[in-house]
């Protein structure tokens, strides 16, 4: 019998912590000093510019010009926020895209909660999206009709991203399953689709959607610009997502397929009940990675003249009074994108922790 030793102290004092973490050896100590110097050099001036000396509100750009770059001109954002958020949507109707944005947030919040994951959720989305459609287009219930050429700003970004993910994700699952199909025709169609779309920049897809698609449509038939861009985004994202999903499918041991088959489950049920839940769970990090990419890629629709958040900002910047406040404008845009992407990232990590119920190592180690 060996003597039971007390466990060594886990938490050292602050000085000890400094020594082990920041000054453990000479290179480490040098790096620490350099990092501290850089922080001291850049952080306080930025805080001064962005917060302490910043001009938050001003009737015109004059005070900002007078400050000559020493203070951030958030007044630009304050002044122009309606245009940035709602684009060219008729000014007196701004409450409609505003309400639509809030509706989107509500839909995201409800869908994020696992206890609402049920077929009924699809119904909630249908109702929510119908409401958003009514609000945005109008033409009924005494709302003025607003053609979607005039939609813009944040709500347009949300529309493109939400529909993009909502349609691309199911499509990608079908593509991934198709690529693993034993039927050669199905498999080749999926492979060609994925490789073709993945091998082309999104910008060129958007151009094709806006310039070439009308050429192929029968004369007299038009698909509006927003829908065309949306289709291009969905097609593009689906190709990427399909490969992510396929990666997840490949990680599922053969025994899982066999056990499901041996129980008499049909292909559809095997896939829906056994394979996909496991495959999608392990694919969460790369899936969210692609979702985040798609969200930011929506900003590329500017090149075909859709008025999303970024183009609205740019246009606001073109106003003679506010020319030259690009730093503030793009910082603001970055902040907005960051909030959405960071929320997705945090949510996915929460979901992963939540789904990692019980150690599954034992069940998988056999393969």
């Amino acid at each position: 019998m060996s003597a039971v030793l007390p466990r060594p102290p886990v938490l050292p004092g602050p000085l000890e912590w400094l020594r082990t973490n920041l000054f453990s050896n000479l290179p480490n100590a040098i790096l620490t000093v350099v990092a501290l110097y850089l922080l001291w050099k850049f952080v306080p001036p930025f805080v001064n510019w962005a917060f302490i000396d910043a001009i938050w509100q001003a009737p015109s750009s004059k005070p900002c010009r007078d400050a000559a770059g020493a203070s951030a001109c958030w007044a630009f954002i304050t002044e122009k926020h309606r245009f940035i958020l709602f684009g060219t949507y008729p000014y007196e109707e701004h409450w409609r895209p505003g309400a639509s944005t809030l509706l989107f947030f509500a839909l995201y919040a409800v869908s994020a909660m696992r206890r609402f994951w049920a077929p009924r959720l699809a119904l909630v989305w249908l109702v929510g999206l119908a409401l958003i459609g009514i609000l945005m287009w109008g033409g009924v219930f005494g709302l003025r009709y607003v053609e979607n050429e005039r939609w813009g700003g944040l709500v347009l970004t949300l529309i493109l991203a939400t529909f993009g993910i909502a349609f691309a994700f199911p499509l990608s699952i079908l593509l991934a399953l198709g690529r693993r199909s034993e039927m050669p025709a199905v498999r080749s169609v999926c492979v060609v689709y994925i490789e073709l779309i993945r091998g082309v920049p999104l910008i060129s897809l958007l151009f094709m959607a806006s310039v070439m698609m009308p050429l192929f449509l029968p004369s007299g038939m038009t698909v509006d610009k927003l829908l065309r861009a949306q289709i291009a985004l969905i097609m593009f994202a689906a190709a990427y997502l399909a490969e992510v999903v396929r990666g997840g499918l490949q990680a599922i041991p053969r025994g899982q397929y066999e056990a499901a088959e041996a129980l008499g489950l049909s292909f559809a049920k095997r896939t829906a009940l056994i394979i996909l839940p496991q495959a999608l769970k392990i694919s969460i990090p790369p899936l969210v990675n692609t979702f985040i990419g798609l969200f930011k890629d929506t900003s590329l629709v500017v090149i075909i003249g859709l008025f999303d958040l970024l183009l609205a900002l740019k246009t606001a910047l073109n106003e003679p009074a506010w020319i030259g406040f690009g730093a503030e404008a793009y910082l603001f845009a970055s902040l907005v994108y960051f909030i959405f992407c960071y929320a997705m990232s945090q949510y996915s990590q929460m979901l992963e922790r939540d789904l990692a119920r019980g150690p599954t190592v034992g069940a998988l180690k056999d393969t």
Partner: protein
Amino acid sequence: MTENAARPAPQETMIEILGVSKWFGDFQALKNISLRVGKGEKIVVCGPSGSGKSTMIRLINRLERHESGRIMVDGIEVADDVKAIEAIRREVGMVFQSFNLFPHLTVLENLVLAPFWVRKTPKWEAEAIARQLLARVRIPEQADKYPGQLSGGQQQRVAIARALAMRPKVMLFDEPTSALDPEMIKEVLDVMVELAEEGMTMVVVTHEMGFARTVADNIVFMDQGEIVETGTPKEFFAAPKTDRAKLFLSQILGH
């Protein structure tokens, strides 16, 4: 196969394998196999590794596809027809060497899944049956755990219960104890012996000769894709007819 007159031949045929061959690429895994399993009969299949015994039982529920010959299970031919295959799989339970429980579902959900989705048993009824089965394999308290939280022996007993939840007419066991630590083998074999005593038709691929001796009506010895010898345990262990069987028995019982 008709030479074993030692036991009364079972009246009804459950599984009939007739002149079946199977190739993997150019390799012929099974060579003109024929075997009849009567209702309630317990067959133990043994033989050296690579002899085709797993392949043979995997043909019965179409986890592998045979290239020639015929297989009938409870009157239905095992062929390409998906509906027929699913009908056979409903009646044939299978237990794998590597358990293959569904790790994302609880033990109870593992048991309820197939009866609910395939047999359309109401959920409450499927759950009641599942709990009975878990009690029968002596792990009722594990119902709400996930497979990854159980020991190997417990997982394999859940796997047996999962197969039984479909009320199968036949149970196939593909080396059910080979992946287990020695101290867990007995708890799984005990469950299988009980099942045999209740009259289940069983085809078991195993190296557990003690189990074969006590449970099997007939032992099928396979080597190099052929059924070399068939006989009652008494005949097979006391006086194997072929040299290959003698060699195999000396290797497996010698240590």
